[in-house]
C-alpha cells in the first residue's frame, strides 16, 4: 500500500511570528530610542536599563515557570518588599554582634533566600495541597506581605545602617569587567532558567502540568510537586532579586515593589508564554522585561509626551507588542 499521508520533510521554515514578534518589538524600540536620543546606546544608559530590569527580570523568570505550570502569583511585589524589610531588620539587628563585613552580608542574603523560599512554599502549599485558586491565594498573600512590611516599618521606611549600606552598595553598582552584578546575576538566572525550561525534565513537567494536569498525572508526573516547586523557585528568585535590590537604595517601605507583579506577568506574556499554561519560554520573558524597561527609559529620554500620558503610551506599546506576535488568527 502506498504511503499517502503527506510526508513532512523538514525544510527550512521562517520562524513564526510568535517567535519573531517580541524580537521585532524590541528592535523597533531600540531603533526609536536611538533615533530620539544620541545617549540612548551609551554604555551608561544600557547598563542602567539592564541593571534596573534585573529585579523584575529575575522575578519574571520564576513567574514564567509558575505560569507555564498553569499557576499565577500576584504576591511577588509585596513579597519582595517584605523580604527587603526583613533583610534590613535582620542585618541591622546583627550589626552590633557581627560588625560590618562579609558575614553580615551573607546573613542578609541567607535571610532573603530562606524567607523567599518559605513565602513561595506557603503560596504553593495553599494552592496545591488545599487546592485553592492561585489568584485568590496570592491576592491574599499580596495583602498580607504588604501589611507586614508596613507594620515592620511602622508605616515608614526601613533603612539599612549607613555604614553597612556603603559596604553592601557594590553588590548593586559594581561588577566584573564593567558589567554590574545585577546584570550578571540576571544573565545567570536567565541562562539557568532557559536550560531548565527547555532542556530539563522539570521544564517538561511544568509544561505538561499547565497543558493538561490530568494527562500529566496519568503520565506519572507529580503535578502538585511540580506546581509547588514552581512557587518555591519563584520565592527564591524574589529573594535573589531582593538581594540585588537592597544595596541600591538601602531601604524598604510600603511602596517598595508596588505593581511588580503586574509588570512581571506582563513581561512573561509579552515574551510569548501562554497565560493559561502549557507553554513557556524564558528567553521571551527576558525580551518582555527589556521591552517594558525600555518604554520607561525612552519616555524619560524624550519630551514628546506629557508625563501624564506615559501610562497611556506604555499601555499602547504593550498591546502592540502582543499584536505583533499574534499568528494569523486561526479559525476556531
Amino acid at each position, binding site marked *: 500500500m502506498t504511503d499517502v499521508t503527506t510526508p513532512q520533510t523538514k525544510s527550512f521554515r521562517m520562524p513564526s511570528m510568535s517567535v519573531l514578534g517580541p524580537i521585532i518589538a524590541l528592535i523597533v524600540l531600540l531603533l526609536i530610542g536611538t533615533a530620539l536620543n544620541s545617549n540612548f546606546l551609551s554604555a551608561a*544608559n544600557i547598563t*542602567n536599563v539592564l541593571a534596573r530590569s534585573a529585579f523584575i527580570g529575575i522575578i519574571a523568570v520564576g513567574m514564567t515557570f509558575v505560569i507555564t505550570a498553569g499557576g499565577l502569583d500576584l504576591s511577588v511585589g509585596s513579597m519582595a518588599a517584605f523580604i527587603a524589610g526583613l533583610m534590613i531588620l535582620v542585618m541591622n539587628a546583627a550589626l552590633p554582634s557581627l560588625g560590618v563585613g562579609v558575614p553580615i552580608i551573607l546573613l542578609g542574603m541567607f535571610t532573603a533566600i530562606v524567607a523567599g523560599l518559605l513565602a513561595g512554599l506557603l503560596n504553593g502549599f495553599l494552592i496545591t495541597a488545599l487546592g485553592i485558586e492561585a489568584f485568590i491565594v496570592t491576592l491574599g498573600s499580596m495583602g498580607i506581605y504588604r501589611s507586614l512590611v508596613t507594620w515592620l516599618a511602622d508605616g515608614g521606611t526601613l533603612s539599612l545602617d549607613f555604614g553597612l549600606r556603603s559596604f553592601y552598595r557594590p553588590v548593586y553598582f559594581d561588577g566584573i569587567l564593567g558589567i554590574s552584578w545585577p546584570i550578571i546575576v540576571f544573565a545567570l538566572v536567565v541562562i539557568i532558567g532557559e536550560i531548565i525550561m527547555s532542556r530539563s525534565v522539570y521544564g517538561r513537567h511544568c509544561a505538561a502540568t499547565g497543558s493538561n494536569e490530568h494527562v500529566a498525572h496519568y503520565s506519572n508526573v507529580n503535578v502538585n510537586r511540580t506546581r509547588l516547586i514552581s512557587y518555591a523557585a519563584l520565592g527564591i528568585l524574589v529573594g535573589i532579586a531582593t538581594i540585588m535590590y537592597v544595596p541600591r537604595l538601602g531601604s524598604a517601605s510600603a511602596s517598595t515593589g508596588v505593581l511588580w507583579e503586574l509588570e512581571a506577568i506582563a513581561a512573561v506574556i509579552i515574551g510569548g508564554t501562554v497565560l493559561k499554561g502549557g507553554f513557556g519560554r524564558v528567553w521571551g520573558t527576558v525580551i518582555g522585561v527589556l521591552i517594558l524597561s525600555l518604554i520607561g527609559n525612552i519616555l524619560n529620554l524624550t519630551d514628546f509626551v506629557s508625563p501624564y500620558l506615559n501610562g497611556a503610551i506604555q499601555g499602547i506599546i504593550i498591546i502592540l507588542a502582543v499584536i505583533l506576535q499574534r499568528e494569523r488568527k486561526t479559525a476556531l
Partner: protein
Amino acid sequence: QETKVIGVSIPAATHGWAGGMNFHAKETVERLEEVYSDLDFVLATASDPGKQVNDIEDMVATRNIDALVVLPFESDPLTPPVQSVADSGAWVTVVDRGLSVEGIKDLYVAGDNSGFGKVSGEFMAQQMPDGGDIVVLRGIPTTIDNERVEGFNAAIEGSGINVLDMEHGNWNRDDSFTVMQDFLSKYPNIDAVWASDDDMAIGVLAAIEAAGRDDVKFVLGGAGMKEMIKRTADGDEMIPANVTYPPSMIATAIELTAVGLTSNAPVSGTFVIGSVLVTQENAMDFYYPDSPF
C-alpha cells in the same frame, strides 16, 4: 462621665511622608488614650478617597464620634462627607489640605503646599544667582503636587533658572532613582535638582553617585526626613538645605482636638504650619532622631 470618641481618618502609608504622618498619628493616639481616660480614639487609614469616605461613614454610623480629625486624601471628594459629619454636630478638625467649602471645619491645622514650593524656589534662586539648568522630580500627580510646583515656578520666575525637564517620581525612591538615571543620560550638564521630597532626594542622590557625575552641585529635597536633616546639619554639600513639611502636623491636630473636647480652652481657628527653610545653621532644631521619618 461619658466617654467621648475622636475619629482620626488619614491616608495610608504609601510613601515616606505619609508613613511619617501615620506614625505620628498612631503614636499620638496611643499616648492620648493614656492621658485622657474619658477619650476614645478610632484611627482609620485609607488607600484612596473612596475608602476614606467609607471610613468616615463608619465612624459616624457605628462609633458615634464626637470629633473627627481628617487629613483629606483629596479635598473635593472629602468635602461632602466631612460636611455631613459637621452637620451632625461633631467637631471637625481638618489637617493639611483644606476642604473645598469654607465653614465646615472647627479647627484647621494647615500645611502650606504652595509655600513649600515657594520656599524651595526661592532657595534655588538664591543658590544660583547666575541661573542654571535644573531638573525637577514631581510627586504623585495630585493637587498637592500641582500647588507645590506652581509655587516653585512662581518663585524661580525671572531668576535665570532653566528647568530642563520635569518627570513624576511619585514620592518614591525607586521611581526617582530611575528617572534621575535617565535625566543624567539625557542631559550632559545639570546644575541642580529639585527633588521636592526627601524620599525622592535619596533616589536622586544614589543615581548621581552611581553615575559619578560632578556637574550636579546640589539636590534640594523637602519634608524634613531625619537622615536628610542630619546630613544638612553635618554640612553635606550636596544637601545644603531642606524645606519642612512636617508629617507631625497630624499630632498637633489630634492633640488640639483632644484639648478642645476635654477642656474649655479655645482651640478653634486656623493653625498654619508653614514651610520653613532648613539650612546647616538651624538644622539641629528640626532634627528628631526618634521619629521614623
